[in-house]
């Protein structure tokens, strides 16, 4: 029998919605492994969040400690491993958020097992599909150790629904050792826009935008749609916009409901980062541009000609 322990992250004292897809994946693994789904939550003042999370699992292990308020891999990894031992878990699962990506390999090291990263499909208890080569190939992987750690891609599993009322079990974190590392502060992005990775709409510009100041047009559209602004590596390299806007293999991989590519030709490197989007719109003056091969709706036009009318039209639809 193998229970599946899922990491439940918190945000502002509540269960983080990005953890719900991991719970769905955990349920699939638990079904294959013949075990129950357990949760682990770590933090400070997480009573309400743990009650909320318990609705999704049969048992939720809680480490609630003033010194655990800020995430640190050094102190959190041993606690996840401890909860796994407590719950007789064969599997430990988390969503591949930045926290999950940072933490789970360290948990893997402590459990002395193998790990599958960014799982997109559960084939069997230890067999998964996951993207490699920036999504250009989907690998079937099998973890051969008794214990299994996995992160799952948020966009590939539906958010879990509540499943009853699980029990919240407080565990003692014991002495914490951060190995000398110090959390100093968290600087939340000043932008009022959503994070690129979580935005439902992404508007991106490429080298075709010609200059940084021309991105203002895209920003206007982005804000009207409540989306995030993105860019190609070429636009970043040309100095139009900062590095952190880069969508692509070496930037952020995004999968929004709507991706609007403006002045983007569609280099492989860029396509790899956005072709999982639900609806792709491309506006480019070159009708041969590769971006049109992945676009659901393509418009052959310069952005100068198309964007004012497009923005005006969106304004009217949004009323």
């Amino acid at each position: 029998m193998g229970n599946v322990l899922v990491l439940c992250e918190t945000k502002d004292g509540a269960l983080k919605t990005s953890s719900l897809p991991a719970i769905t994946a955990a349920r699939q693994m638990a079904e294959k492994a013949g075990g129950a789904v357990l949760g682990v939550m770590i933090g400070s003042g997480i009573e309400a969040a743990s009650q909320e999370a318990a609705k999704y699992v049969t048992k939720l292990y809680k480490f609630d400690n003033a010194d655990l308020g800020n995430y640190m891999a050094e102190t959190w990894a041993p606690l996840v491993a401890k909860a796994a031992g407590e719950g007789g878990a064969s599997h430990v699962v988390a969503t591949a958020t930045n926290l999950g990506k940072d933490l789970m390999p360290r948990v893997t090291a402590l459990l002395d097992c193998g790990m599958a990263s960014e799982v997109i499909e559960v084939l069997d208890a230890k067999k998964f599909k996951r993207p490699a080569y920036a999504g250009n190939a989907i690998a079937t992987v099998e973890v051969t150790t008794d214990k299994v750690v996995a992160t799952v891609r948020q966009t590939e599993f539906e958010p879990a629904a509540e499943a009853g009322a699980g029990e919240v079990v407080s565990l003692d974190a014991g002495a914490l050792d951060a190995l000398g590392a110090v959390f100093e502060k968290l600087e939340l992005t000043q932008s009022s826009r959503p994070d690129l990775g979580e935005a439902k709409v992404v508007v991106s510009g490429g080298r075709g935008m010609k200059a940084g100041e021309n991105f203002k047009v895209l920003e206007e559209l982005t804000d009207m749609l409540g989306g995030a602004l993105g860019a190609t590596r070429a636009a970043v390299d040309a100095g139009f916009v900062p590095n952190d806007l880069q969508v692509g293999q070496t930037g952020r991989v995004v999968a929004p409901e709507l991706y609007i590519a403006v002045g983007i030709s569609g280099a492989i490197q860029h396509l790899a980062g956005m072709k999982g989007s639900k609806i792709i719109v491309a506006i480019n003056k070159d009708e041969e541009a590769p971006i049109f091969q992945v676009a659901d709706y393509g418009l052959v036009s310069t952005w100068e000609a198309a964007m004012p009318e497009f923005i005006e039209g969106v304004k009217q639809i949004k009323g």
Partner: protein
Amino acid sequence: MKILVTAKRVPDPEQKVKVKDGMVDLSGVSYVINPFDEYAVEAALRLNEKGAAGGKAERFGEVVILSIGPEKAAVKEMRAALAMGADRAVHVVANDDDLDSEIVARIVAKVYEQEQPDLLLMGKQAVDGDSNQAAQLVAGYLGMPQACFASQIETEADAKWLRTYREVDGGIEVKKVPLPAVVTVDLRIVSPDAVRNGQTDPGHKYEDGPRFASLKGIMKAKKKPVDKKTPADLGVELNKRVVYHGYEAPAERAGGIKVKDVAELLDKLHNEAKVI
């Protein structure tokens, strides 16, 4: 300081990878240093020099490159890192198919123990396997502090710590780690002022991106020492914990349509796709 930097050989990410007969077809692809590792090499060099205009930097400390890969093939990538200015390299000879994240991490940990650097610096992930595990595993195995996805690093001359600015969900986390530590770098680590070492003038701005090797650097790199080892030399067994059973091509996107004008585009997005 003494810095150990990993440099993995990966298929050039600018080329399209094809899946053929359940395998990734690597025939005819050219290889480069994993871009994130190249950024780590750049960051290591910036930490270990007094940067000045025109690339005339005064170097100190030591930058050691570690590459794990096939006999002949890894050499090009290591020489490229040496040509950028690294001092010497360790080459652990192994076929890519015999490795997984755990084996790589065990090898890196062993070389770390032999070299005893002040800092292990790695790219945040390799762009072929995309696993994003090795550095965190090494930190876990060795019980060392870790700071992953750093977009900025600060320290002072002779300091025994690094202040890292980590790209986390929703912003930047500032984490200070004592040395020795394991740090991985993200894209912005090669921004003009992303690395501050207390010796380079704080007003100094680097060129954005990793440096190009000069002709002189390339010539010098040919004479820099490369220490060859095998996983067996390091006592690491090749028992994979994660086995790849094969690959398939991702689902192709169904062919879209071209609209004739903005009005039609708006109509489709509003009434057909219902996304606006």
